[in-house]
């Protein structure tokens, strides 16, 4: 497989897709997913593919390998990879390319590794299978790659099994696996979406470095604009399976041509004017909580003013969600009290009155799992109406329709099942369900992090509007600083089960920062293509004198 005796010039056309059409089968018929897209990728070039979910990003990314998922077919156009026609190529020919000359890095590394094999064996599998390198050499090379990717203990990490390393490390091992046979093209399919911001920075830096060093061409699929700005030379925007526009990264960021692209960009500009609240609505005082013997909250004290939004930020494992569980009574605290409207809430859910339950509602991160797939929208929203307010029959239906209109949907949704809704619509239904109880206080647990940017904006605006209309207090759990800016009045920063600081948004987001807040804030990608380079330089400069 040593077709390249001399290194090809950077700039040769590597991948050429012309008028590609792809259809998917569902509901007994074929639907068009990709409706004629052209794509040209040169050697050593990184292209960012962005768009909302359903735009066909992943389908197009996979098609670049000549691969389609089951139930999906390529119906037209040509896909040419380094002179090889991938549409016409046989399965055997494509298999020879996959994993060796074209590699794929999936969103969920945890689901992509075989839990029964060691990381190193999986990293070099494709390389040794195709006899690109002898096994011993491949192993040495893999360890080098681990080192380049800044994995801890590169000599021995390969001896571990997938469950023994963290998510961010696994994602980097997967990148090493993709790089091991020195492919010409790597397809990254949302590789950092599942990671914390602080981890994301490390993974992004590692990926960019390795792609640059080896002049590998890459297609980077994501819905996070700030991320793609760091990685890509060229950005292509997709919508409904069609290209909206394509331009160089800098030009795309500064002068997007199409209104749709501009609307994508504008999301991050959403910002709420902070207001100070004096009237304490809910307060957590000196709370400790533990799962079994593992203590996860240490002396947490937070106070949340009435009618305002307090954002709780921190990476996963910082105790944000546990705090929510203590407030709702799912996890009784071992020490301290939670006061709501001045009165102490019983720690256990079972001991709370129906009215106490009604006043505090919760909206979940994954709208998919927060709604029973076997209930219709009418039943989902109707149940709290019946349960708390005793509405039945016509009255209940009328109220459900009112609620649907409140969340900018209409009557036609009433007998749909959750599977018949898009992500944003699902989250709206969850909001309507919380509203149905006529609550005073809503806990929003990462409600926008699973959504596309443009949909996020819609949800955030809706939440803001509802707060204005009904004076609802929000406790907003998130790790996304853009969301925090958009919605919050006050911010609480948590780290390892402790509150690092609480204050007004403007105070927390401006210096001087405590150590952890600064790390967290600086890790949030900005819409500036030089951001990552600058950040890495800054961090390096800090470490150098030490």
């Amino acid at each position, binding site marked *: 497989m040593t077709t390249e005796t001399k290194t090809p010039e950077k700039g040769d056309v590597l991948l050429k897709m012309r008028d590609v059409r792809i259809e998917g*089968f*569902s*509901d*007994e018929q074929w639907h068009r997913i990709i*409706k004629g897209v052209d794509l040209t990728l040169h050697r050593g070039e990184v292209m960012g593919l962005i768009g*909302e*979910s*359903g*735009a066909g990003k992943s389908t197009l990314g996979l098609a670049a390998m000549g691969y389609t998922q*089951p*139930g999906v*077919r390529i119906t037209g156009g040509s896909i040419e990879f380094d002179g090889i026609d991938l549409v016409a190529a046989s399965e055997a020919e494509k298999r020879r390319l996959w994993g060796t000359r074209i590699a794929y890095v999936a969103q969920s590394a945890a689901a992509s590794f075989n839990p029964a094999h060691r990381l190193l064996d999986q990293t070099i599998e494709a390389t040794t299978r195709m006899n690109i390198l002898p096994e011993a050499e491949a192993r040495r090379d893999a360890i080098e790659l681990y080192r380049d990717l800044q994995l801890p203990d590169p000599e021995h990490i390969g001896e571990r099994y997938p469950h023994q390393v963290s998510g961010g490390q696994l994602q980097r091992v997967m990148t090493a696996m993709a790089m091991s046979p020195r492919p010409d093209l790597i397809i990254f399919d949302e590789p950092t979406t599942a990671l914390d911001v602080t981890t994301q920075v490390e993974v992004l830096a590692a990926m960019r470095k390795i792609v640059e060093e080896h002049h590998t061409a890459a297609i980077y699929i994501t819905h996070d604009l700030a991320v793609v700005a760091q990685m890509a030379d060229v950005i292509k925007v997709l*919508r*409904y399976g*069609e290209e909206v526009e394509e331009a160089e990264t800098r030009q795309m960021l500064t002068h997007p041509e199409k*209104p*749709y692209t501009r*609307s994508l960009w504008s999301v991050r500009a959403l910002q709420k004017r902070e207001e100070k609240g004096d009237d304490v609505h809910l307060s957590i005082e000196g709370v400790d909580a533990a799962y079994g013997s593992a203590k996860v909250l240490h002396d947490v004290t937070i106070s949340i003013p009435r009618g305002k939004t307090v954002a709780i930020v921190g990476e996963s494992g910082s105790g944000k969600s546990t705090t929510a569980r203590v407030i*709702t*009574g*799912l996890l009784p605290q071992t020490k301290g009290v939670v006061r709501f409207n001045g009165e102490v809430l019983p720690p256990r*859910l079972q001991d709370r009155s*129906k009215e106490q*339950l009604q006043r505090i*509602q*919760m909206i*979940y991160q*994954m709208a998919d*799992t*927060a*709604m*029973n*797939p*076997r*209930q219709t929208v009418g039943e989902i929203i109707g*149940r*709290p109406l019946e*349960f*708390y307010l005793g509405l039945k029959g016509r009255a209940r239906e009328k109220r459900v329709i009112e609620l649907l209109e409140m*969340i*900018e*949907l*209409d009557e036609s*949704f009433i*007998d*749909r099942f959750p599977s*018949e*809704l*898009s*992500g*944003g*619509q699902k989250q*709206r239904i969850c909001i309507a*369900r919380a509203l149905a*109880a006529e609550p005073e206080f809503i806990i929003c647990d990462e409600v926008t992090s699973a959504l596309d940017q*443009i*949909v996020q*904006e*819609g949800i955030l605006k*809706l939440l803001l509007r509802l707060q204005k209309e009904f004076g609802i207090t929000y406790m907003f759990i998130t790790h996304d600083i853009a969301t925090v800016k958009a919605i919050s009045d006050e911010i609480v920063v948590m780290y390892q089960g402790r509150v690092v600081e609480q204050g007004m948004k403007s105070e927390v987001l401006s210096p001087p920062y405590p150590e952890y807040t600064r790390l967290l804030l600086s890790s949030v990608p900005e819409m500036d293509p030089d951001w990552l380079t600058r950040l890495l330089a800054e961090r390096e400069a800090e470490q150098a004198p030490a």
Partner: protein
Amino acid sequence: MTDTQDNPETYSAAAEVGAVRKRRTRWERIRLALKKAPPTAWFGMIVVALYCFTAIFAPWLAPYGEAEIFLEPYAPWSAEHVFGTDQIGRDILSRMIYGARNTMGIALVTTFLAFLIGGGLGLIAAINRSWLDQFLSRAVDVLMAIPSLIFALMLLSIFGSTVMSLILIIAVLDSTRVFRLTRSVAVNVVVMDYVEAARLRGEGLVWIMRREILPNIMPPLVAEFGLRFCFVFLTIAALSFLGVGIQPPTADWGSMVRDNASLIQFAKYDLKAGLTPLLPAAAIALLTVAVNFIVDWFLHKTSGLRDDH
């Protein structure tokens, strides 16, 4: 740029991309599923329908009464007695028709009871996950450790072979497997956010079980119901064959096989006589195969595996 979507330059929640699926009513979906059912499933459904028809209308279909005795025992096949008579002169065809009613009826009641006990406790164990779960699961382990046919034989000889004790004993013994299945599929649903949401709302145990969890674990349970029905049916037939199941004069396929088993040695003189004891056995086998065909189809449909197009 596109004709199927709204104006792409403005954003509206209701027109958000993704959900353009057509809603179908339940009837339309069932009709569509039936239209695409494979021949094996059709075969199964027709056979089961015929059995049910026979069981329901047994008194009208059977030429003679269930326990009506004629003069000639072991009569050969004839126009009068289509499949001959048994050892004390009862019409075999009539007894087979009534047998469908008894054997299937008892098996159905038993299976329902097994699901009520096993399914109910399984759900409670899955939701509770505390000492109760431990207690129930270990109790089930103990019950399952004892070979069930021998255990059933023992219990039946202690409590006597009445239809009631037969149903109860087999239901309890079979409910262990239902318990295991229900618990294992329910624990995956219990951790879902919507169950937590129901709990936060203050819903009671019954509502959570019936409305939040049960609808989501129905497919494996329905499939298990079909299989369990077959096993119960075979257990009853086996017990009857051993003489401790359904007692005469009630007609039942298992005991009919035993009663006429000796006829099989006459096969070399009269093939039809030799076939007589095999008829009830064939009836059992056919029903088992038919139910399994339906279960297979159902499992394939609900497992989400799709054929490659």
